[in-house]
């Protein structure tokens, strides 16, 4: 039995589908952010698998994933700052309660 490229792409597709399901159904801001991280992680896994199987001597996919991880960290930090701010203004983090902007 050989572990070809599809063996890594299929779990990534299924993880992405889980992320989409969570993104559509969850109503808590932090839970939505968790689903977002799942989708991002699935995309990273794709880059690495393609790099390893199609261009094994090069490292572009790996570098891209490194930068994607760094940017994901920045994005999560800002999102969590916004969520804490929303919590301070409204008292919870349910998206149904967030109905008005400041202006």
């Amino acid at each position: 039995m050989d572990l070809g490229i599809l063996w890594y792409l299929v779990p990534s597709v299924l993880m992405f589908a889980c992320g989409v399901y969570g993104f559509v159904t969850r109503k808590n801001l932090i839970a939505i952010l968790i689903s977002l991280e799942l989708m991002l992680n699935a995309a990273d896994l794709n880059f690495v698998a393609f790099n390893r199987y199609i261009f094994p001597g090069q490292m572009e996919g790996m570098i891209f994933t490194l930068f994607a991880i760094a940017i994901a960290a920045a994005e999560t930090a800002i999102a969590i700052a916004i969520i804490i701010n929303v919590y301070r203004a409204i008292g919870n983090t349910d998206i149904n309660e967030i109905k008005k902007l400041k202006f």
Partner: protein
Amino acid sequence: MDSVGNIVLYFVVAISMLVFSVMAVTSRKILRSATYLLFVLISTALFYFQLGYQFLGAVQIAVYAGGIMVLFIFSILLTHRPDDKSGKIESHRRIAGICASVLGAALLLGALFTMPVGAAGCSLTDVLAAGNCIDMQTIGHTLLGTDKFHYLLPFEAVSVLLLACIIGGVVVARKR
């Protein structure tokens, strides 16, 4: 032909990844959801190790499973009581979510299984033997070099982005 150990490791990691990602999006307690996300991230890091990217796996564990998860848990503890449960999902929302994810997955899987795999269908052992594994020295030279296909400029741009993000996070989250 891959070794039995590799295949067993693959199945353990893949199954734990799928199970925990399903549990992360369906669990009603948000802190558990975050913990399941942690297991998904660690499984992904194990895939990186198996594919021969040791540095990337270490970064995944240190930044994702270390840094980002601590951020998540801090924010969950700041905004929720530990025994809080999220409400039941309305059925139309659930149907919309299942439709979106199943249709998307079907489309992607259909595209995957009809694509010509070619040389990419070969075994992991062959690929790891042919593409010589990347050592730390090469990674360092590539990240901080200025030649063609080197990445000093994006590296510096990311450091500026992280600095901006630190300041922005403090500005957005501070008390007024």
